[in-house]
């Protein structure tokens, strides 16, 4: 297929995601406004008002209802979407697990934001990572283009019959949602071809099914095992969808992880989300000063790219994981994931907890920690707080 050139627009993250959603043509949306997602909801309503998006936007009274509404709608066949953040995502939690367990294909965007208390409207990843065990595919965007790309791919991955799972697209609140960047958007016709018509439909009056029924212990365990297998299968489906997307857009998609300057690196930095952009700067600066450092970006958080991460850790003199979420009493959430896949390896793995509740992190902060790592001066866990 020839590379398809679409328009180049200047969009803030929320509008880029709304644009992708419009092109994916969902028929039912249920969204409750919450900072920093609100402008996305506003844009979607505007599209509906102008007749550019033919969808029912259900005005719900809470995030719990938003997810419940699209859960029910999705069972009847239409493509659905919601978006939330922080406290909203927490309030949605019960239904998040319901749709995950029921294996309902749908897409939710999460404009990541810190969790109270204390109250905060700024960015970190605590909300996003808290949904790691809910049988959802979770992907994280680095920039606005990435948020647009992942949203389109999310619909296709979610509805793939080999996966049949909800997908969560995380993108950093304010840092991406409210920042205007150059975005290449695909022509509508190309998106139509990229995302095939949805096949998932459970409500059929000629063939009635019970949904949400109690499962006996034997059946419960069986379905959980099937979900585990589907999550493993999703890895190859995600790679396949990304490869196809790369072919269409000409934009490199890399896969579950991306290795930046890490082929010959002695020291490796691991990160996820928008600050990966700053990490690239930090790594490049250190390279200019002759330090052999590299960067591993985690693009897909669930299914966690175990094999890729393990492979990337091998033979390094030191690794530092930058964490924007913390499991109190244990460690940085991403660090724990990385460490779990380093079992048996001797590479020392350090953690830097930073950017909590939107605390500013500059490339030179990242550079400093990475330089300390190369000089053996980095503690096992450092807090930039």
């Amino acid at each position: 297929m020839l590379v398809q050139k679409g328009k180049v627009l200047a969009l803030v993250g929320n509008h880029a995601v709304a644009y992708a959603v419009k092109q994916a043509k969902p028929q039912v949306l249920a969204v409750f406004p919450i900072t920093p997602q609100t402008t996305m909801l506003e844009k979607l309503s505007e599209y509906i008002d102008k007749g550019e998006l033919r969808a029912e936007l259900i005005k719900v009274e809470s995030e719990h209802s938003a997810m419940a509404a699209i859960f029910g709608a999705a069972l009847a066949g239409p493509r659905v979407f919601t978006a939330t953040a922080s406290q909203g995502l927490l309030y949605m939690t019960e239904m998040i697990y319901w749709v995950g367990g029921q294996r309902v294909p749908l897409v939710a965007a999460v404009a990541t934001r810190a969790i109270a208390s204390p109250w905060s409207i700024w960015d970190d990843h605590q909300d996003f990572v808290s949904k790691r065990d809910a049988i959802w595919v979770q992907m994280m965007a680095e920039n606005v283009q990435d948020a647009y790309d992942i949203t389109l791919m999310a619909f296709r991955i979610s509805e793939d019959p080999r996966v049949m799972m909800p997908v969560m697209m995380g993108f950093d609140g304010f840092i991406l949602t409210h920042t205007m960047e150059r975005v290449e958007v695909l022509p509508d016709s190309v998106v139509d071809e990229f995302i095939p018509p949805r096949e998932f439909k459970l409500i059929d009056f000629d063939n009635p099914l019970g949904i949400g029924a109690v499962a006996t212990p034997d059946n419960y365990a069986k379905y959980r095992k099937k979900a585990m297998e589907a999550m493993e299968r999703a890895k190859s489906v995600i790679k396949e969808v990304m490869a196809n997307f790369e072919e269409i857009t000409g934009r490199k998609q890399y896969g579950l992880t991306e290795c930046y300057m890490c082929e010959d690196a002695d020291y490796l930095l691991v990160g996820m989300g928008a600050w990966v952009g700053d990490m690239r700067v930090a790594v490049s600066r250190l390279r200019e000063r002759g330090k052999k450092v590299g960067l591993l970006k985690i693009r897909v958080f669930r299914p966690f790219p175990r094999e890729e991460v393990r492979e990337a850790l091998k033979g390094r003199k030191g690794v530092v994981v930058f964490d924007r979420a913390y499991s109190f009493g244990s460690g940085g959430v991403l660090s724990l994931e990385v460490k779990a896949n380093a079992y048996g390896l001797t590479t020392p793995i350090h953690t830097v907890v930073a950017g909590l509740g939107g605390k500013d992190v500059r490339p030179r902060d990242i550079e400093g920690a990475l330089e300390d790592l190369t000089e053996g001066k980095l503690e096992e866990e450092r807090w930039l707080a």
Partner: protein
Amino acid sequence: MIDLSEIPVAKPAKGSAGKTGTWRVLRPVIRYDKCTRCRLCIMYCVENTIDQEPNLYPKIDYDYCKGCGVCAQVCPTKAIAMVPEVK
């Protein structure tokens, strides 16, 4: 096509949970001399175990009736008696 064995859905079918009539403690017995064939018991039966041929009296399927007693409660002529299964 979606693979229904992959996701938790229930396919309702008669007897899929075994013969639930064995759960019964009280047995509904219809006194046909009092029954007016109003069909209320059929409509209210939560387990769909009461059936009726056209113009005939209702009949309880004791293989699946759990003995909940809803039919006896709704019967306007008190034609259904709940009789202990064990004396």
